[in-house]
């Protein structure tokens, strides 16, 4: 959902009408096909969130489908238990397995997860086939049908209705989820993890949440499948099916929830056609449709990596929000009334990279209500110092404390929680999201809506207030005209200001700015300086790492000058300007 425009209501209505029409007018063959498309859509939808949005690839979803199917099959054939009671059992078991697997594998770099999913996908499949009490390779038969309030679902048409009600409900919930506080954070996981963590997102936890969500959807699909077929065996839960689920999501367009449905429909129908056509064409029967799927994937990834959905979406006129609904902003942190008290203390900080000492016994403090400038020639260690304070880098020695609390062992998201906001030297915006969404991500810690609240759309009041916060920060930064623009459409200088607005949305006590004026034009610099002065007058404390002398001299209260990792001078801008050591470092001696 990389800022994908919302689907027009009429298109959604047409789709639902088509769904309703199929069982009424189409032959049974299409109803069966529709059932499979619905079941596969539910699984692919999980992959849209996990892979397309959060950037974590899984080839093992078929195993979770199997877990759902087998749990319900076993429970309902062992004892006269209602399938509706078996469903929570299946979901619980899947959640436990997914949590365990996710906890282990999601800590690894991107490409280990998919490899691990292949391995446990095969392991779970072989387990189903080798356990005698699960029927071995023959499977389990005689699974009771579902019934709803005494009405027993007896034929494909009945299941068609149920499957698509469930599929549409999961679509609705997933779309809601993406358009919410956790959804914004989830969308940042792909390519923006470090940035999101700087605004309080616990990336590791969120990835596991996405993983469990996808596993639960797969389990739900498996449960439906078991009671539709009333028979399960290991075959449909093997690794090839797991790979096909991923192909569905990627071919359909893994960035949008609708891509799941499009992909599931395309692959299912194509497979049906190919299994009809290929054997007569080739004069041999075999699993030849996988060649076509494979070639399709290779060509698609070479030429149209975003899948089919973006092409379809372009056909319909986009529906775009054009106004931020009025709402009271989220509550702000109580302003810190103290002035001129040390808020951040850097004490003999030291950072080495191998033999290189980037920061060498550096000590200084930032005092409340001031703008402190950290300057120095190239390679002086400014950015390293910035990284140490923001938690992106670990100290080799010494200590950095915020309001007396050491930041040493804290992760970036814990540091964000203390009220420290930051910008990035290399702009870290989510390029396909609107400016409003990007800035709203800054307010992550000020909201509390979780996955469940978001999926059920119970978060709208808070969401409106979050948007109000974001809109206000954008307005303050002077970017109101760009509120709904895609971030990537803005010039680099403006993107830097968006970074500042995002940091403001976090309502920080201490604002860390990493070269915010780089690439700005004269008037933009002036506007930025005015903004920072305004923030200072409201009691915000600001650390400014900057190259631009003129900008720094006119704005800061005090300066710390670094050279070769050490502190060269500290004091008021006018004094520092006269300091012979500083002149020597900058001008090579006079």
């Amino acid at each position, binding site marked *: 959902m990389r800022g994908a425009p919302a689907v027009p209501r009429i298109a959604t209505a047409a789709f639902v009408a088509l769904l309703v029409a199929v069982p009424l007018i189409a032959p049974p063959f299409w109803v069966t096909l529709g059932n499979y498309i619905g079941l596969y859509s539910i699984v692919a939808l999980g992959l849209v969130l996990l892979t397309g949005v959060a*950037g974590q*690839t899984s*080839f093992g979803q078929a195993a979770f489908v199997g877990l759902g199917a087998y749990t319900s099959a076993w429970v309902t054939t062992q004892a006269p238990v209602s399938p509706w009671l078996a469903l929570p059992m299946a979901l619980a078991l899947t959640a436990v397995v997914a949590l365990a*697997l996710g906890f*282990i*594998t999601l*800590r*690894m*770099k*991107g*490409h*280990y997860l*998919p*490899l*691990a999913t*292949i*391995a*446990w996908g*095969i*392991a779970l499949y*072989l*387990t189903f086939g*080798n356990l005698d009490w699960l029927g071995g390779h023959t499977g389990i038969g005689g699974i009771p049908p579902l019934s709803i309030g005494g009405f027993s679902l007896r034929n494909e048409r009945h299941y068609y209705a149920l499957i698509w009600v469930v599929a549409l409900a999961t679509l609705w919930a997933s779309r809601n989820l993406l358009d919410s506080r956790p959804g914004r954070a989830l969308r940042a996981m*792909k*390519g923006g*993890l*470090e940035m999101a963590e700087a605004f309080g997102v616990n990336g590791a936890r969120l990835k596991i949440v996405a993983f469990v969500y996808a596993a639960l959807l797969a389990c739900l699909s498996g449960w439906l499948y078991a009671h539709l077929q009333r028979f399960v065996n290991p075959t449909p839960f093997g690794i*090839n099916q797991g*790979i096909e689920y*991923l*192909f569905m999501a*990627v071919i359909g367009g893994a960035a949008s929830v609708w891509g799941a449905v499009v992909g599931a429909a395309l692959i299912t129908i194509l497979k049906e056609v190919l299994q009809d056509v290929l054997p007569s064409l*080739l004069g*041999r029967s*075999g*699993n*030849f*449709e*996988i*060649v076509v*799927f*494979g*070639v399709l*994937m*290779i060509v698609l*990834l*070479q030429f149209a*990596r975003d899948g089919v959905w973006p092409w379809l979406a372009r056909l319909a006129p986009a529906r775009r929000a054009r106004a931020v609904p009025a709402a009271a902003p989220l509550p702000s942190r109580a302003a810190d009334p103290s002035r001129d008290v040390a808020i951040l203390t850097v004490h003999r900080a030291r950072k080495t990279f191998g033999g290189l000492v980037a920061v060498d016994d550096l000590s200084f403090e930032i005092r409340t209500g001031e703008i402190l400038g950290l300057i120095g020639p190239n390679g002086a260690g400014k950015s390293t110092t910035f990284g140490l304070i923001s938690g992106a880098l670990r100290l080799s020695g010494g200590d950095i404390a915020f309001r007396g609390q050491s930041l040493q062992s804290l992760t970036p998201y814990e540091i964000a929680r203390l009220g420290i906001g930051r910008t990035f030297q290399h702009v870290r915006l989510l390029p396909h999201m609107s400016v409003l969404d990007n800035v709203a991500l800054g307010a992550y810690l000020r909201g509390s809506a979780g996955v469940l609240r978001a999926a059920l759309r119970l978060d709208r009041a808070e969401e409106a207030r979050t948007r109000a916060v974001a809109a206000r920060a954008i307005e303050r930064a002077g970017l109101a005209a760009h509120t709904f623009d895609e971030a990537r459409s803005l010039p680099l200088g403006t993107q830097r200001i968006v970074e500042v607005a995002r940091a403001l949305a976090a309502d920080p006590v201490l604002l860390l700015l990493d070269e915010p004026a780089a690439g700005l034009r004269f008037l933009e610099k002036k506007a930025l300086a005015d903004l920072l002065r305004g923030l200072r007058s409201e009691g915000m404390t600001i650390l400014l790492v900057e190259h631009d002398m003129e900008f720094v001299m006119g704005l800061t209260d005090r300066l710390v000058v670094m050279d070769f990792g050490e502190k060269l001078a500290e004091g008021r801008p006018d004094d520092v300007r006269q300091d012979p050591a500083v002149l020597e470092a900058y001008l090579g001696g006079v």
Partner: protein
Amino acid sequence: MDLSIAALLAQDGITNGAIYALLALAIVLVFTVTRVIWIPSGEFLSYGTLTLAGLQLGKAPGTVGLLVALAIVAGLVETASSWRQGALARLPRRLLFWVGVPLLIALVLARAAPLQWPFPVQVLLTLAAVTAMGPLQYRIVYQPLADASVLVLLIVSVAVHFVLTGLGLWFFGAEGSRTPAFSDASLQAGAVVFSAQSLFVVLASLLLIGVLYLLFGATLYGKALRATAINRIGARLVGISPSFAGTLTFALAALLCAFSGVLIGPITTVYYDSGFLISLKGFVGAIIGGLVSYPLAAAGAILVGLLESFSSFWASAFKEVIVFTLIIPVLLWRSLATRHHEEDE
């Protein structure tokens, strides 16, 4: 379990492990130079066994058709890209390499099959034919995606695995093949019997590992590949062509896989789709080495072989389950051992 059974299982495990080690090396080689997680390595192993088996039976193996098909596609891809770059003058030479050479090998293979040449010549022909498919695969699939992320390359690799499995069924048929043992001799050492076949597999693997070590440590081409592995842009700046490095890497890796196919032929029946599971065992080994270390990958692969053979004794139905579940503690260990800084794209 007594000592002689344990020795037998260990011998089995080490023999299989040596084959997995070759695959693990190929996987690490491809990953470090091109960032491709080479899932379809297993298909090259199957193709190796099946090609040799075809030659043994005196009939043209499916490899002939595969080579012709790949050469035609590569020719089309090459023509299209030369056309787009406006470099048609270079096209004949490129076509000679991408189409001429594979077709020549296919021709020799087709003609040689009924002649029943001596076994070592058949092995060499097999290696040549399967090795030629490595660079073709790189040219057709991976070179156009050289700048894609590791994840995209991985998904593509899985797609290639699908394609090669399907093509394998088409060109080689559904029947499995076994090739005769290189030697039926055996060595008695106390209560333990070593088969000459196992010794040969282990020695051959060790030899290949040694050759690779020398190649990478001491030759200019090896250094060029290492340079590409460490820094693609930097290597490019000093005049190493990434596509040349990719071509060379895929040729080497395909050779390793083809050779393991030749080695595994007498040990187990190989079907068109057997390679996948075997290559995944190589992957478990490679992951133990973090996908970058050759010695750790080889050691990991031997460990996988041993684990597999001992678990087939205790719980034969679950031996694959045990091997693939092993990846979880391995990943846990690696995740605790490395503090990674991630930005996946």
